[in-house]
């Protein structure tokens, strides 16, 4: 019997019953999902009221105001810089609230230098990976932005883990002016970007060419298809809110699997370090720092806070090796690197769904981190550049 062999009943009633039942199931699922899925916060730039000089642009840094003469502080890092965990088990991640690192730093600068006209830009990204940071920094520098101080949060997991370029960062390579200019920037003798990075940048440009070719060849049916998909999505929750539903299914399945087989406590670390990616990521970090320095920025790096009551996700020995190595390069790179790993006490961390959150800490945690960065940088006179009116 081949795979397509199927016995179907001879009569029309069977067809009607099967089709009607299928329709009923879809209708019920649509009804259920419309009640299950609630509006989820998207970009952090939403409702929270902030002073005019504090801007959060996670996904679309092209919205950064045109380059100005005013001083600016950039904050770059993963979601620990902007997201807040739930305060009790079962709570979701909060992403549109005040009292995060950028607010705390801006307030301190404002208090210390009341006449200073400084803009604060949060340009972080979820699980920001070094090649992504490099692309974003390169793109903004190429467009003429010149930060005064850059606060760069380094999360070990994102340095040791994989190397990829997600579509919102990849979009930079579609900028015709950026194309080519970035390679020239990296090729500068003072930057000394590793050939692997240049190779990767060229690969992205080739991918853009390929995408553009595909775009040129798109037919009317592609355009009709897009409109049709959007139209159906606006009417059917199952399609329109499919990302949320997929996330819900994934979480439920993961929870079920972990109830049957939970090896999280027994493993030394959950993710293996990938040597090639790790080496590439460190090269990217060096290139980021050199690019920023070369364009006149003061760079303040910190090893992001970690909670100590859960086993580490990545090999801690290799992390210590990395820290020793990077600390050893600070003089040569001309940057300040601070160790903020133990700055946020365990009680300031929270929950994400049913699990303890390893990445994000609550508002008091953000205050602690901001105060630590403020004090340490003050001791090194880093903020003095913001003092002049």
């Amino acid at each position, binding site marked *: 019997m081949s795979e397509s062999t199927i016995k179907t009943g001879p009569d029309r009633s069977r067809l009607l*019953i099967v089709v009607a039942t299928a329709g009923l199931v879809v209708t019920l699922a649509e009804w259920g999902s419309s009640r299950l899925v609630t509006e989820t916060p998207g970009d952090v730039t939403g409702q929270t009221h902030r002073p005019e000089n504090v801007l959060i642009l996670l996904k679309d840094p092209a919205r950064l105001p045109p380059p100005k003469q005013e001083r600016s502080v950039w904050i770059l890092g993963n979601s620990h810089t902007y997201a807040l965990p739930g305060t009790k088990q079962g709570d979701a991640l909060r992403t549109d609230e005040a009292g995060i690192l950028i607010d705390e730093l801006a307030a301190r600068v404002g208090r210390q230098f009341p006449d200073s006209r400084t803009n604060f830009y949060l340009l972080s990204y979820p699980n920001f990976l070094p090649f992504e940071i490099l692309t974003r920094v390169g793109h903004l520098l190429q467009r003429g932005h010149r930060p005064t101080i850059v606060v760069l949060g380094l999360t070990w997991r994102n340095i040791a883990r994989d190397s990829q370029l997600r579509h919102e960062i990849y979009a930079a390579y579609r900028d015709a002016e950026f194309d080519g200019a970035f390679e020239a920037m990296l090729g500068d003798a003072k930057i000394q970007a590793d050939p692997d990075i240049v190779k990767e940048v060229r690969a992205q440009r080739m991918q853009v060419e390929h995408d553009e070719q595909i775009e040129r060849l798109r037919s009317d049916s592609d355009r009709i298809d897009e409109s049709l998909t959007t139209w159906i999505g606006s009417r059917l929750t*199952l399609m329109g809110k499919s990302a949320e539903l997929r996330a819900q299914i994934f979480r439920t399945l993961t929870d079920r699997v972990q109830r049957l087989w939970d090896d999280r406590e027994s493993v030394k670390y959950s993710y293996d370090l990938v040597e090639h990616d790790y080496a590439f990521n460190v090269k990217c970090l060096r290139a980021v720092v050199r690019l920023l320095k070369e364009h006149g920025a003061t760079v303040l790096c910190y090893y992001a806070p970690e909670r100590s009551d859960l086993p580490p996700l990545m090999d801690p020995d290799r992390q210590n090796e990395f820290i020793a190595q990077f600390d050893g390069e600070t003089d040569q790179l001309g940057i300040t690197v601070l160790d903020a790993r133990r700055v946020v006490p365990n009680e300031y961390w929270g929950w994400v769904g049913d699990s303890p959150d390893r990445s994000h800490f609550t508002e008091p945690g953000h205050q602690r981190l901001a105060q630590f960065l403020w004090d340490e940088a003050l001791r090194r006179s880093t903020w003095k550049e913001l003092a002049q009116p």
Partner: protein
Amino acid sequence: MGRGSSTINLEGVGAALRFNSPVYLAFLPIVVLAVWLAPARAHRWVLLAASYVFYASWHWPYLGLLVGSAALNHWGARWIVAGPPNRKLRGGCVLAANVLLLAEFKYLSWLCENVNAVGSWLGITQLVAVPQWILPLGISFYVFEAISYTVDIIRKRERIHSFWDFQLFIAFFPKLIAGPIMRAKELLPQIENPQTRLDSSAFLGGLWMIVSGLFLKIVLADGIAPDVDRAFSRPFESIGATDVYCMSVAFGLQIYLDFSSYTRMAIGSARLCGIQLVDNFNYPYSATSPVDFWNRWHISLSRWIRDYLFFPLLGKKATLGAMCRAALLSMALCGIWHGAGWSFLLWGLYHGGLIAGYHILTYRQRTSPSAVATADAGISPAKQLLAMLSTFALVSLGWVLFRSATTAQALGLLQRALMPWEYSYRALSGTFYLHTALLTLAIWASPRVTKYVAAASEAQPSGSAGTGFGYWLAQGSLAGMMLVLCLIYLRGQTAFIYFQF
């Protein structure tokens, strides 16, 4: 990217051609309605018009190529039968025209690139200009159908059909882009004698094939695709031996689910139009030998290779040497049919080697009378399981050659797979391993589940609505749940892997 050829694949372009796109799911009911509202004698015209619209929606200039290719073969067939003394010579000319058409669009750029590579090795830059063709979708499939028709005409196994019926045979939209590769004797009689009415059983069967095909593509094949893509886009230096096993199995599952889902939707779409297409798959991962695998995998291509390449290459005396030679040559051509690239050729040779090896191991057994008697008595379930697992492992390893972007990557990955003691680390996530393992178990279980469901279906007394009601409700609920998951997991319509061949 990276396969070496400059031929442009329009993967991801041409929404109407993708059975998993809303525009196709809107196009199909219109065609089905038009077919069944039209009188039976007009079915061919509705289907031909729909097929031309379907193909032109992708890249209309190539519609001329499709029509021209069919016309060439129709008139070529007339020319062959017109002159009996030169039948083979004329047939050879028509076949050569088909091969040239395929070679020009599919292999010329690759050939030029290789000539230039040799030139650059000799210190000469750009010996020949590399043509930048857009690879016409479905060309490998419709040219193979045309070739089989021409060979059957030469062998006097086929007759001349009307020009427009032959056009529809070549262009029939459900099988145009990625098969099944139909024979004239299978499709043309259905076109010439169309069904006068669609019975509800065929209609339900067609719908079931489309819904289950959508589920296999959108939920299962596209579900594992991102993990597979990420794994194969990693530098192979960072990959461990167990990762290669996992990646190759995962890609094997992905391509099977992707291609078999396409076939299901093609068969379902055709069935709604009153046409029966041949099936392409019969649980290939339950195969117990390489030969058995090819009898179950891409069946319409396998039998084409068998009838038009393997048997002619084998000649009249089926000695062991001749069988091995024919297997290697025909499978090498099968590999290169899939794409212009050395890795495809290596993949074909690998399978040729597996089949030749199987013939060598079993030749004596199959030719000695006592062994034949033992074989007839059947093999033990344990041996059968061992044979299935070995075949699965060997076939899966072969996918590394097929999927790798470059020959260097393929050989690098194979080196890791074959030397696990040297590369004992793991770089891919545990969830990828778990996902692959669960999918493998599901695929292995599917023949038994289908057998069980078919038995339950057989047990329902036909026409007895009372006892069949529960079964029908279950079938409807399953279809509904599959549709719900399809709507949730439709993340932008991805192209089918076999579109690029």
